[in-house]
């Protein structure tokens, strides 16, 4: 009879210790600090109840940041999924240029956000930028805009850059999923006489649903936690019109309002948690159905 040998629980200790020190402890203290009046040297704290949270929700400039974060997360998730899926289906077609096509579409993902922001800053300049110059050249002057300085459209311009940069990643994940669909299944469906839409709706989509789920979750989390692209492209401006939660966190830390900054971070954590749980539940139901 073979006796099962188990590793000792002691072996878990180093890993748990590191996890505890670098993740559990900072997370818990973060929750604590959100209710305190912490100064810039992180030394003095006083319990202030929900004051930090109230302050975040009452100020108009900070409220804009919450609104922008939701707009950004929704728009970028939607387009990254839709465009990613379309591009993956195109990239799944066997052509001589398929590999080149896939590489080109994935290329923006590997570029530095700062470099992308600098390029788009130049391209979206209202009078010297490539986009407006091109629109004027083809006599579509009425479409030219101050893309990054008009407070009404700036957040959408930032969304566009984010979608351009990250759609390649969702495409690659979709492509991997598409390539796992057995060819025989498609062939037998074609023999049965299904059209392209039916094929997509009843065969492709259900089989790639786990990846749709993953992509949506990743995009939602990425969208809600956005910081780098906004900071590099607009710095949250003009004025405060493109602030998002994480730029507010940064701004509050810089102003020495560490308690408020931590409170904003805690709110962001809770928002991400709730939305991701909800999205996950809905998508899992669809996946099972």
């Amino acid at each position: 009879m073979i006796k099962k040998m188990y590793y000792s629980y002691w072996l878990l200790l180093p890993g748990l210790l590191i996890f505890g020190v670098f993740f559990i402890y900072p997370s818990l203290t973060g929750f604590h600090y959100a209710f305190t009046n912490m100064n810039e040297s992180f030394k003095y704290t006083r319990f202030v109840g929900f004051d930090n949270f109230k302050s975040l929700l009452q100020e108009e400039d900070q409220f804009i940041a919450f609104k922008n974060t939701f707009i950004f997360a929704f728009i970028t998730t939607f387009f990254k999924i839709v465009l990613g899926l379309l591009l993956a289906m195109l990239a799944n077609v066997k052509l001589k240029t398929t590999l080149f096509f896939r590489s080109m579409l994935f290329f923006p993902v590997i570029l530095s956000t700062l470099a992308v922001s600098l390029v788009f800053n130049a391209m979206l300049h209202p009078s010297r930028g490539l986009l407006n110059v091109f629109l004027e050249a083809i006599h579509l002057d009425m479409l030219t805009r101050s893309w990054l300085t008009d407070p009404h459209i700036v957040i959408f311009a930032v969304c566009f850059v984010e979608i351009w940069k990250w759609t390649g990643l969702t495409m690659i994940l979709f492509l991997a999923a598409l390539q796992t669909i057995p060819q025989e299944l498609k062939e037998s469906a074609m023999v049965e006489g299904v059209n392209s839409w039916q094929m997509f709706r009843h065969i492709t989509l259900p089989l790639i649903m786990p990846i749709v789920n993953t992509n949506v979750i990743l995009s939602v989390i990425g969208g809600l936690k956005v910081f780098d692209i906004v900071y590099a492209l607009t710095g949250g401006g003009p004025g405060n019109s493109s602030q998002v939660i994480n730029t507010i966190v940064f701004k509050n830390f810089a102003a020495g309002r560490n308690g408020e900054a931590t409170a904003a971070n805690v709110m962001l954590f809770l928002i991400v948690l709730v939305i991701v749980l909800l999205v996950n539940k809905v998508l899992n139901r669809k996946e099972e159905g």
Partner: protein
Amino acid sequence: MRKKHFGTVFVAAILALLMVVVTACGSGNKESSSSPADSTQSASPSAPEASPSASPSASLEKIKIKGIGHASWFKSGMDEVLIAAAEKTGIELELEKIPEGMDGVNLVKARFATGDKPDLLFYYAGLGDQQGFGKMSDTFVSQEDQPWITNFDKNSWKGIMTALEDGKYYGAPYGGSNTSVVLYNKKVFASLGLEVPTTMDEFWSVSEALKKGGKIPVYLSGKDAWTLQLPVQHAQATPSTAEVLAKVDVNQAKFTDWTARKTGLQFLKDVTSKGLTNKDVLSDTYDNAQKALATGEAGMYVMATWVMTDIASKFPDQTADIGAFLMPYQGADADKSYIFAPNAVFVVKGKNEEAAQKFVNFFESLEAQNIFFGKDGGIPAIKGVTVTSLTPAELEAKALLDAGKASGDGYVMKYDINAAFPAYLQDIIIGGKTPEQVLEAQQKDYEKAAKAKDDPNFK
């Protein structure tokens, strides 16, 4: 077959590794062989002459320290001082250049908040305990007993460069003092037959004439939002500023009572709404403004004299075309320019504080100051500097100072809420906020900062 293939790869890998090692050793030799050459270079005519007592650089212990400051603060003058410091003191200062304005301020404050501190902080003078760097005496080395301070007029800069709480000097002057002015292109004015305005009515007439003449009347570089502060700070150069701020600090007055600031904010609103600025204010940068002013594309630019160092290096042939005058906010010869104290270099307490202080003492020596001001503009705060490179516009501005037409910071606010100010100014440009709303928002920011520190006046 596979074994044979593995053998080839293995041998190739070993060879590649050997090449890397040999190359590395080779470059190491090059470095060491270049050292004597470097020390001979120090005797070249361009390098400052070493005093007989100065020990040769080879015998000095080399110490590397780190400094941080806005990128535009480090120009050719500082480059030459760094070389001289390494030769004469053995201290190699590595500078981290951070973005201008509030982006850089936010970054450096976040660094201090997280304990990631440099050895030297190049920052604005007159810091206090409540401005994001902790208690001054805990964070920085006091400069009161340092040798350089005997060659510095402590009384003139008291209250401006000293800490609010204990009145001590923690920062040593970095660069010269500057002043806010309207820089204008004399050739453009002459070609359109325009005179320097002395009242606001005249200012608007001149601006309209410039516009009719196909020029940008007033250039605003709003992409670099910090530059929008200059017209406002210029308006604040009145004795009433210190009076109202002293009351704001103890909650006996509000920001909305600060009429001088409101005048500056209103100017930004008016100049934009009248269409007297460049078309893409919020996309145009500090660099764009320098070019526009120097080349005559723009007529006027409200800025401080420090911009002339950049213009002189980029547009040496046009530097003499630029003059300076006071913005006639009040008219009747009552206006003053806003004088900016020299920036400061702070020695951060820590393991390298001794070396950092040694660098500062060298920097403030006449030898280093002459090197610095021989290249960079600004009016030196250290006494006895004989080499300066002031442009005509700076000399005109200096004449204003000499005639007593200047008002200094005078009063440092207890709580630093300026991080949000440039964004508010952008808000005025885009019509998102009125001047009154900006002042109300600043009052809220101030109250919040005061309450965060448990200030008894703001319960």
